[in-house]
């Protein structure tokens, strides 16, 4: 039966009431924290020698960086990668020195999502040029930040030291064990699932594998639905926020980027929203850039949340490293005009090249997200 033509300007009523979405949000956040707890338990069971898979045996910081990029490109979510890194650190199976470049790699890897989004307008040159520049300004910023901050971190360790000091400050000098108030609530859920698996006579490596698989599935599901739920719940606020920063540059845009990303728990959502706006020409690259930087800072809240469910203070430390890294990058490549223009001009130039010859698009994606991290693992591990 053919459907009736859509007439009028009436709006459909909201499908799920706000209170139900807020309850759902708390449920999902709880599920996410339980998943981190499960993952920490799994890593503990596996022990230091096995707690690795993708993230282990990484001797060089450059290899760790490459693992962070590749891992994030594969799962298409820096939140999942950083949450896993936090769980690994929190369970004591990954040292902070190795985790720092991995976190940086996750930052780079997540930018592939909006680059792929920009390909949607590849057939319309002018739109594609703007969309691709908007997407790649994030990539270039992250690569530039890593190029300067990773060597600096290797030689000075300022991020590690700063994060450790902050962790001690938050734990009120507690030192060895960080007791977050939420942890006890989360432990109940973790214990219930673990007991359930143990009642099936699972133990040792089998139990750890089962816990790990359940944890990963829960992290994916919870983060995915937190994002969808929050996006639906706060669509109006997000829309109003974007409308208010369309013609404004600077701090307001950055704050909007932080707020939107913290709300939807995904920097990819924020940056991917900017791509069609830039493509349509209603948002300039100059104004999109601070929003992107804000998204980079906002996304660190996921790792901070995840750290609430870990047993040791190292989870919080690496989450704070993530925050310090993104704040450092922003301070490096935003306040000074000449430095601010580096990612913007780079993205513009790259977009012109990719518009003139689409082969550049493939070459760029291959080099930035496959070849460079691949070589990093091969050469430095």
């Amino acid at each position, binding site marked *: 039966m053919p459907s009736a033509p859509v*007439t009028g300007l009436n709006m459909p009523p909201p499908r799920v009431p706000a209170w139900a979405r807020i309850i759902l949000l708390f449920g999902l956040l709880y599920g996410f924290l339980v998943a981190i707890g499960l993952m920490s338990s799994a890593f503990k069971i596996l022990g230091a020698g096995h707690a690795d898979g993708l993230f282990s045996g990484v001797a060089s910081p450059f290899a760790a960086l490459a693992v962070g990029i590749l891992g994030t490109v594969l799962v298409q979510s820096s939140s999942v990668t950083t949450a896993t890194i936090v769980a690994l650190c929190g369970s004591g199976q990954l040292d902070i020195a190795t985790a720092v470049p991995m976190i940086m790699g996750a930052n780079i890897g997540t930018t592939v999502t909006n680059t792929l989004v920009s390909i949607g307008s590849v057939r319309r040159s002018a739109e594609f040029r703007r969309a691709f520049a908007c997407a790649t300004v994030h990539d270039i910023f992250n690569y530039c930040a890593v190029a300067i901050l990773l060597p600096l971190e290797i030689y000075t360790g300022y991020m590690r030291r700063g994060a450790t000091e902050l962790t001690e400050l938050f734990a009120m000098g507690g030192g060895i064990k960080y007791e977050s108030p939420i942890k006890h609530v989360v432990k109940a859920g973790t214990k219930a699932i673990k007991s359930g698996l143990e009642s099936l006579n699972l133990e040792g490596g089998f139990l750890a594998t089962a816990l790990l698989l359940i944890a990963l599935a829960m992290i994916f599901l919870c983060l995915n639905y937190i994002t969808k739920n929050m996006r639906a719940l706060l*669509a109006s606020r997000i829309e109003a926020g974007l409308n208010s920063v369309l013609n404004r540059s600077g701090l307001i845009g950055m704050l909007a980027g932080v707020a939107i990303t913290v709300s939807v728990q995904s920097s990819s959502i924020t940056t991917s929203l900017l791509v069609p706006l830039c493509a349509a020409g209603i948002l300039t690259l100059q104004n999109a850039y601070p929003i992107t930087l804000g998204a980079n800072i906002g996304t660190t809240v996921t790792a901070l949340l995840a750290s609430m469910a870990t047993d040791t203070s190292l989870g919080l430390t690496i989450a704070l490293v993530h925050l310090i890294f993104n704040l450092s990058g922003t301070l490096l490549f935003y306040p000074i005009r000449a430095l601010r223009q580096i990612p913007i001009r780079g993205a513009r130039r790259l977009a012109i090249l990719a518009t003139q010859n689409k082969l550049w698009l493939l070459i760029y994606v291959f080099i930035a997200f496959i070849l460079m991290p691949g070589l990093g693992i091969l050469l430095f591990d």
Partner: protein
Amino acid sequence: MFHWLLGDKQGLARIFQHFGQMLEDGRHIFDAASNALLGGTDPETIRDDLYATDRRINGVEQKIRRELVVHLAVSERTEFSVCLKLMSLVKDAERIGDYAKNIFDLGVAVPGFNADPAREDLIQVKDQVSRLLAKMRNLHESQDEELARAFCEQGESVLRHCDEKVDSLLRSTDNDSHAVTSALMYRYIKRVMAHSMNIVSSIFMSVDKLDYFDESQETR
């Protein structure tokens, strides 16, 4: 309860509000410009207000377009049909402002027109259109299909009347010095009415039929 969190108005509702403002400004600018030609108002006394209103209409048109793109990017709902309609309707609302400016220019160019015999009929038609423009604003709020159809029927009679008048002016052999002015005024009023009908007919017509309102179509 969650007002602080969710914001004052839903994205599309805010855009509707802007569109309502455009319609209100449309009526204001039409009335003001018509008075310059037909009511004996000194054009210079309303020039600034008229041009400011036109700039406001143009600004709101661009704002609505921008906000529609943002809304489509953010919203996961299937509101694209409404958005496409609004994208088309803002053009109609903006054209009302443009024709009003044409009427104003006519008032500036022909200062003695308020003594013309055709003036009485033009005032009646203009008043009818002005009332319909006010109705259009209310219809935009209520989205009442029956009233929208009635509006378009009244609009049709205005269009026919204007056509007849222009036709008779074309065929007239009288040495009427203001024949061109009258013909242009009827033409502008007709266009204002036609754009208003496009806006109102969107209440009961599907997005593909916009701008093609016709009594004989199966829209009833």
